[in-house]
């Protein structure tokens, strides 16, 4: 049954199909652990343009071929970090990966490694969010920006100090770094590169006074020292964050070679 489309949507869709000259095979890994342990790949042929992203192709599949494909997405512009998945074996954001740049006629999409699968391509973020919370990702101070006498005030930051952590502020919590991390694959209690990079972000912020609290959290048997410095976390980050470097800088604090 065809649902009635808004005239503009209808026009847009027909234009896309008519102008498309190429198609790719999309292999989607399907599973539903809540029902059974079966895993399989379903193949779909989708039309593409040079600007078509993997997310566009997946949404095309959902719209026209199989609406049951489980996928999490939201912003479509690499801001929300919802559509992380393994694309041709590498963790990437579906909305930020153009099919034309993959240079392949077959695109394999799988759920991210090191995360429990909810259904198909959607994974659970509980472990990552819990670890993120554990490192206290906020500025810790005894005083407040709300001043009882003068009202609001600002904790000013110099441009030089912003440079120390600004790249780590770009984290969108997509989980790609944790998915690529070899230690995360082995150690189910490892705190992970995402949380460690965020620990560094706040420790390096000179407005923050919670350094010792955070260092205590990450300085345990499944904390920062279990990082092997494989660097895969930094390779896959879509926002240019370098968690591997953040981890090494954090180690400097713990070894006493940084203040």
């Amino acid at each position, binding site marked *: 049954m065809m649902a009635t489309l808004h005239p503009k949507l209808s026009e847009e869709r027909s234009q896309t199909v008519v102008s498309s000259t190429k198609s790719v095979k999309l292999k989607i890994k399907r599973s539903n652990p809540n029902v059974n342990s079966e895993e399989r790949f379903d193949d779909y042929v989708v039309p593409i343009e040079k600007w078509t992203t993997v997310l566009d192709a997946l949404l095309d599949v959902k719209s026209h071929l199989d609406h049951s494909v489980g996928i999490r997405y939201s912003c479509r512009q690499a801001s929300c970090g919802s559509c992380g998945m393994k694309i041709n074996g590498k963790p990437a954001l579906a909305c930020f990966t153009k099919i034309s740049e993959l240079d392949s006629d077959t695109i394999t999409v799988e759920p991210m490694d090191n995360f429990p699968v909810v259904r198909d391509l959607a994974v659970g973020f509980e472990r990552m969010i819990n670890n993120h919370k554990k490192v206290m990702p906020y500025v810790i101070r005894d005083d407040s920006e709300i001043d009882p006498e003068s009202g609001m005030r600002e904790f000013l930051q110099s441009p030089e100090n912003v440079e120390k952590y600004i790249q780590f502020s770009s984290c969108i919590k997509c989980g790609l770094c944790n998915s690529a991390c070899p230690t995360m694959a*082995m*150690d*189910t209690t490892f705190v992970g590169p995402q949380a460690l990079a965020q620990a560094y972000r706040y420790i390096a912020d000179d407005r923050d006074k919670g350094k010792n609290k955070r260092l205590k959290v990450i300085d345990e*048997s499944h904390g*920062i020292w*279990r990082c092997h410095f494989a660097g895969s976390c930094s390779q896959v980050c879509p926002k240019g964050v370098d968690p591997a470097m953040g981890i090494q800088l954090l180690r400097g604090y713990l*070894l006493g070679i940084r203040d």
Partner: protein
Amino acid sequence: MMVLRESIIMKIHYGTAIGALSLTVVHILMRLTQDFHESLAYENVIANYESVGYALLLELLLILISVHGFNGLRVILLEMNQGPTYEKAVTIGCLAAMAGLIAYGSRTIIMTSMGMV
């Protein structure tokens, strides 16, 4: 379970690595004081042990390598599996094995240096 913080343990780990490497260099350089095959001759090996300085070097090398090696093994084992009981067993097991190896090695060094072999 761990009495020491992980950063202290890792400082010991890195320190023992640097120490062991430095002493191994001295140990290997000692082979250059004579022909290599001569340095491995039974009498010369025993003579090394009977020299107090060299015996101390070997004892220190034994301690450094045992501490570094068994902490490395602990780290590997902790990554392979998790859980409080397992982690406690790994830590105690590695400490016991380390102590056992140092005790046995020290016994050999002491007995040889005292001419009991």
